[in-house]
């Protein structure tokens, strides 16, 4: 019993000193949250105002009228088809490349990392122009025949690429893959490679360890990469305009529809299509986020 009072005194001292320190701390916290919150809300507010302005600009009837146009309907269908194809193709590239970059040190890795990042930083029109040049350059420059890649594909497969729907997919895929690779690499970076090593001691080949241990743990990353690749494909415009063109009902996706409607002075229709794109992107992100949350449980 005799020991308690001094110990209580010590506690009181500690509490008092903590209280003394916490008062200025609360003030500095308030300043910190005011500055960070203020700066952050500026951007969030800007995005919100953009959306509100779009919604207020178009009446529901004008929106429905625009969406009912046969060109826009065809554009919606082609957008869904090309974005999904580009996203799926991106994952086929991003998963192995992200895994290799995450797990292995090899000579020239930095060159591959830099090359993968190029489509993200290249001006979109330059990317479209580069695709156009690649497909129309004589293959003799690469030491293989005198015809171009475009002609070779047309003769072999029977369909053209440039100014056809495959050009849209290729333009979307080129940019979307860069983002998907980065996402998958981060996803694999967050998984302890030790599990794959242990799986190999238990009888797995490298491939089996990848499929049985790494891939199931990377499922959230896979969902995120799909969302990013799909959303990037939806927003792609520059490379599509140069490489695929903007022919109505043929190579018209929603981003080109906005451009085409604007170029003929149909502002209502352009904004209606823009709103549709916002709704589609939001829906995809929500669905994939829900799926990601379920996978993480």
């Amino acid at each position, binding site marked *: 019993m005799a020991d308690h009072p001094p110990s209580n005194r010590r506690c009181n001292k500690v509490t008092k000193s903590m209280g003394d320190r916490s008062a200025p701390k609360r003030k500095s916290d308030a300043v910190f949250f005011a500055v960070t919150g203020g700066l952050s809300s500026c951007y969030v507010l800007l995005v919100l105002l953009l959306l509100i302005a779009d919604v207020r600009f178009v009446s529901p009837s004008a929106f429905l009228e625009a969406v009912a146009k046969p060109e826009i309907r065809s554009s919606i269908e082609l957008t869904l088809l090309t974005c999904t194809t580009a996203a799926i193709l991106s994952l086929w590239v991003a998963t192995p490349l992200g895994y290799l970059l995450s797990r292995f040190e090899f000579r020239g890795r930095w060159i591959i990392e830099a090359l993968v990042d190029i489509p993200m930083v290249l001006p979109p029109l330059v990317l479209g122009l580069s695709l156009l040049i690649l497909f129309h350059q004589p293959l003799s420059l690469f030491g293989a025949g005198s015809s171009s890649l475009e002609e070779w594909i047309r003769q072999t497969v029977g369909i053209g690429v440039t100014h056809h729907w495959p050009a849209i997919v290729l333009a979307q895929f080129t940019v979307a893959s860069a983002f998907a690779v980065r996402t998958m690499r981060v996803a694999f970076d967050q998984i302890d490679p*030790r599990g794959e*090593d*242990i799986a*190999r*001691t*238990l009888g797995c*080949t490298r491939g089996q360890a990848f499929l*049985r*241990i790494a891939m199931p743990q990377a499922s959230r990353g896979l969902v995120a990469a799909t969302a990013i690749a799909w959303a990037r494909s939806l927003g792609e415009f520059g490379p599509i305009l140069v490489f695929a063109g903007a022919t109505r009902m043929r190579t018209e996706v929603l981003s080109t529809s906005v451009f085409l409607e604007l170029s003929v002075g149909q502002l209502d229709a352009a904004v209606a299509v823009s709103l549709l794109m916002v709704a589609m992107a939001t829906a995809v992100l929500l669905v994939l986020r829900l799926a990601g949350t379920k996978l993480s449980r």
Partner: protein
Amino acid sequence: MIELQGISVSQGDFQLESLSLTVPSGGEAVLMGGNGAGKTTVLEVICGLRKPSSGSVRLGGKDVTTSPPGSRGIGYVPQDRSLFPNLNVFENLAFALRVRGAERSVTRNRVNELAEQLGLTPLLSRDVRSLSGGESQRVAIGRALVFEPSVLLLDEPTSALDENTRRQTTELLINLKSQLKMTTLHVTHRRDEAAQLADRIYELRRGDLHLIADSSEEESVAEET
């Protein structure tokens, strides 16, 4: 039998030079040494996760230096356990059998038998992320034993366990040793654990391996006298 002959490993500033070690068939050796001495590296070389720059690894008389880890028939229990978080306890235990394409009934029976032996039966459907330290250690040991390997490598199996769990795990390892008669190499910091389990004690000091105790020789000398 585990035989290392002139193993050298070099990675950055870290180096192991010309290590040789033998663990007789069915025997248990303990490898001791300070932090960063390279004990885990030695285990990784034996199980094929790390390539030595020179030297050879022989298991049961067969040179496996260039063999892939999965074909060496080694059960490896890493220090951090590395249970597969995407699989439950049953699936972790069954992993090696499923990879080998064992029939479902064979896998189920073997896993149930092992779970009984390790006291894991009530935990079979549990998520491995919800297990305590001692429980996850038993799962890691079971996962390594399920395919009846000829060699068992244990990397500090009682580290990061409380005193009671550590004692239980050591008892479990002693029981397994007497039941399974596997060739075992066991890394530990604890001299008492080494003395309880090992026939031979090696110590890794500044990149050199020293045999500091060999009870099998003492026993044979005692028998002769």
